[in-house]
Every structure is written in structure tokens, then in C-alpha cells.
């Protein structure tokens, strides 16, 4: 996967419908459900065994940076737009996962010695995406000052969500992935279908890390 260097203003990239995104090639990330066994409580494991979740087969990813900020446009099929928790369902969501120390076990959201950094968007959070860190199942925590911005649009069965952040992020390196033009880093994705009441570990995820090369 490649983050294409483009000469586009960051606030334009933040708009998922901006025509400039058409010039950025998209890649399909294969997605699948998280294993039932990796849910972090007996209740959640039973839920994963008995109820449908993780149905997204493929997520389209476009990535671009302008030397200052990097942006990811995620597009996926979702017939229903879910914005709240009112009906016993969840808001739709998406996330991007990075490693903080080179490599990390993807299946457990990192480990103590190999933490991960997540950029998290949920439809009820609108433009306020979260910067999170994790070092194993159930350890997800807000990591402060991620400077992550989000733009989103659901249109007739498709979500388009942009997550952007300055390449050189403020915040300590232990919480926030440092991104640099010319370098390659590992990346993975997650999508939550709120209509199935997906949340926590009940989601569609990319089955393995992808190598993301930031064009110099």
C-alpha cells in the first residue's frame, strides 16, 4: 500500500467527496471477523459464537499525504447508516491501527512490549476522532493529543470516512505513531457495523498487517 504524495490542501483531503481523491489509487484490504475466542470475556465470546458480526469482506483504502498531513480515505459498503446507541445497536465506526515499535501482534491489539496506536472514528463522534493506544486485549486507552481529524459521509449504502493527522505528530512517541515521507510502516484496519450492534472486539478487521509506504 502506498501513501501517494499529492499537492492538495489538507482541508480538501478531509472531505471524503473531494474529487482530488479520484487521483489517488485505491487498494482493497481483505477483511474478516475477529475470532470469537479473542473476545475478552466469556460473555463476549458467547456473543461472537451465537450472533452475526464481521461481515465486511473488503475495505477500499486510499492514502495520500502533502508533506505536512497524511490522510486515509476508507470506503466500505454498509446498507444502513447507524448514528447512535438508542435501538440497542451501535454507531458505525472505523479504525486504523499502527505499530509503535516496528512490529506487534495484530490479533491481540499489540502486547506490553509491542504497543499499537489506533485512530478511531465512530459515527456519533462526527469530526472528533480518537487517538488510542493498546498493548494487548482489553487495554485500549485514550492517548491524548492525537490531532486526528475526521470527515465522513454516508451515501446510499456506502460510508466514506477520511482520517487525517499531521505526519509529525505531537505527543510522545510511545503513544503516537511517527510517520515520515519515504518510510514504510505497518498498518491495519477495522470496521464496525452498528446495525449488527458491533462494538469492542466484535468487528471486521484486516487479517494481517499491510505495509504502507509513504511516497517521498
Amino acid at each position, binding site marked *: 500500500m502506498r501513501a501517494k504524495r499529492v499537492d492538495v490542501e489538507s482541508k480538501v483531503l478531509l472531505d471524503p467527496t473531494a474529487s482530488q481523491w479520484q487521483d489517488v489509487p485505491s487498494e482493497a484490504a481483505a477483511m474478516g471477523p475477529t475470532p470469537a475466542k479473542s473476545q475478552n*470475556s466469556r*460473555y463476549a465470546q*458467547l456473543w461472537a459464537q451465537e*450472533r452475526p458480526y464481521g461481515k465486511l469482506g473488503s475495505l477500499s483504502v486510499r492514502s495520500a499525504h502533502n508533506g505536512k498531513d497524511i490522510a486515509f480515505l476508507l470506503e466500505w459498503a454498509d446498507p444502513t447508516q447507524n448514528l*447512535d446507541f438508542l435501538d440497542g445497536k451501535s454507531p458505525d465506526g472505523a479504525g486504523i491501527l499502527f505499530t509503535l515499535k516496528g512490529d506487534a501482534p495484530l490479533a491481540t491489539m499489540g502486547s506490553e512490549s509491542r504497543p499499537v496506536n489506533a485512530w478511531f472514528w465512530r459515527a456519533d463522534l462526527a469530526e472528533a476522532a480518537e487517538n488510542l493506544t493498546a498493548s494487548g486485549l*482489553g487495554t485500549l486507552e485514550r492517548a491524548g493529543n492525537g490531532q486526528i481529524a475526521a470527515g465522513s459521509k454516508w451515501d446510499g449504502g456506502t460510508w466514506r470516512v477520511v482520517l487525517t493527522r499531521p505526519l509529525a505528530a505531537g505527543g510522545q512517541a510511545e503513544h503516537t505513531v511517527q510517520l515520515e515521507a519515504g518510510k514504510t510502516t505497518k498498518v491495519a484496519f477495522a470496521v464496525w457495523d452498528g446495525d449488527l450492534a458491533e462494538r469492542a472486539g466484535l468487528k471486521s478487521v484486516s487479517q494481517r498487517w499491510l505495509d504502507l509506504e509513504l511516497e517521498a
Partner: protein
Amino acid sequence: MTTQSETTPRHQLAMVFDLNKCTGCQTCSVACKVLWTRDEGAEYQWWCMANTLPGKGTPKDWEQMGGGYRNGDPALGHLPTRDEFGGGWEYNYEEVYFRGKGRTVHLQPKGDAPKWGPNWDEDEGAGEYPNSYFFYLPRLCNHCTHPACVEACPRGAMFKRDEDGIVLRNEDRCRGYRFCMEACPYKKIYFNHLRKVSQHCMFCFPRLEKGVAPACARQCPGRMLFVGYLDDPNGSIHKLVKEWEVALPLHAEFGTGPNVFYVPPLAPPRLNPDGSFDESTPRIPTEYLEYLFGPKVGQALDTLTSEMEKKRRGEPSELIDMLIVYRWQELFGPFTQDPAEIVWK
């Protein structure tokens, strides 16, 4: 897993509600609401609520919503919707009181007509006149011995306190996953749609720390709400639950080991068409009380009845004296501190 493994707490706080004295006045419900659930996002939350039984209560038909345990394993539950809880209505105070429409518009909730609320089927009960029946059942978090909510949370945000067994939550760790809400078979956990965390009765633990009884207990004008340590052999709770066995758990088959107990309700006799008493069968069907409180309910009612007869004959009865609560402070175990007399340093 990060979830708390189950160890027995050093002590277990518990409550007993004497349903023979509950008038459904909702002072307990309001005491709790005024203290804990006034903030935005908590409008519809009633951590304590006295519903009428038989009835669907809140959330609507909660007894059919699953959760708890079956054969030692967690059982999947339904995540109640905001409408199933109902309530939290916004009223048209502005136009009625301040915009001159007081004579033309009823005071009513804004928006669509409500379809359910926290006490929607109050006083409906069951049966046919003159043999209809109902009673009140206040419900709140049972601070269970095997709390399904604690087990269900993948983040360990719910936990059972070691010193007194009350079930608390860490709202910083909570990310609003709501497995706790599905898992609780009593459906006494609410979701705060503004703060995106789950919330529930926490036994007024800040009051306990000052020796003050929970608000529901201290405010109850019916003197029917006992608070104390289940494991204190000298306390009322222990005597009512373990010795006299007149205080019973609600839906023990849910498997969570609730620590809120109920003295089941006696009822007046049924009436024959000619107005004479029909004592062949109780007014409140025994099967219904067994459905709620288990197979020992008949025995509990018999104990109550025979002890009451003793009192009527002028003989002493420790049990009835305990349930009469001649001295109000006897309800609260060690928590007899008057909050108005606390010296704040």
C-alpha cells in the same frame, strides 16, 4: 483476560425490602434520582424504581430479556432499547407556564406520545374484580455475588469491591460497549447517551464511607428497607435471610446470587360472589410468587402468618418486632449517621 477473577469479598452488604409495607410511594426512587441521576444524559435513568407486579416494569418485559447464567455459563441477553426503558421525557413547561398557553394546552411530553415509561403499568396488576391483586416491587442493582456484568465487561470496567461486595464501575475505563447491560438479567444498568458510559446504582458508597445509609433506605417512609451486612450474625439482614428465611432473592434462577432480598407480600383473602371470604386459595397465586421468589415462598409466608398470630395473641415475636421496626435506626445496620450532622473538615 483482564476481567476480575471471582474471589469472595470480605463482607457483603445487602438489603431487605419488606413488600408487606411497600406503598409504592416512590420516595426511594426519587431520593436516588435527586441525588445521582439529575445530570444530562441521565434523565431517563431510575437506578431505583418501584414497579407494580404483576406487570412488565422497566425496561418493558425485562424478565424475558435474558442475561445472567445458565448451568454456570453466561447466557446471552437482550440489550434494552431507549424506548423499552422509556421515560426521560422533556415537557412543554415553556408554553404552558410562560407563553400563555396554560388554558389551552396540557402539560405533556414534547414530541411523539410516549409508549412506555419507568412505571407505565403502575397499579394495573392482575386478576378480576373483586379478586384482583397487585403489590409493589422496588428494584435496584442487586450487587450480586456472581455479577454477570463484571464477567461480561472485556475491559474490567465493572468490579466487585472486596471490602463490602458492592458492584461498582470505573467510568474512565468504560467505553460504552454495554455488554454489562446485556448480561445483567435484572436490567438495572443504564446507558448515558451523552457520556457514552454505563451507569447503575452504586449503593451510595460515598454515603457509606461517612456511615450514612443509602438514600433510598434512609428516605423510605414505610420503614421497609433494611441495609446491613449479610454476614453479620447479629444484624437484621442475616436474621431475615438466613435464620428466619423470610427474605428471599428475586429470580434466583438467573444465577447471579443477588444480595437484595424481599419479604414476600401477604394478601387479603379472596371474596366469594356472596361477599364471604374464599380462603381455599390465596389472592396472589402461589405459582406467581414462586416464579418470582422461588419454592421457599410458601414457607416464608407461613412463617410470617404464624408469627403475626403469636403477636396477636400477646406472645412475643422477635421476627415481627424486627419487621415492625419500632426504632427507625434499626433498619440501617451500622449506617446510622445523620448526614445533616456530619462535621466536614
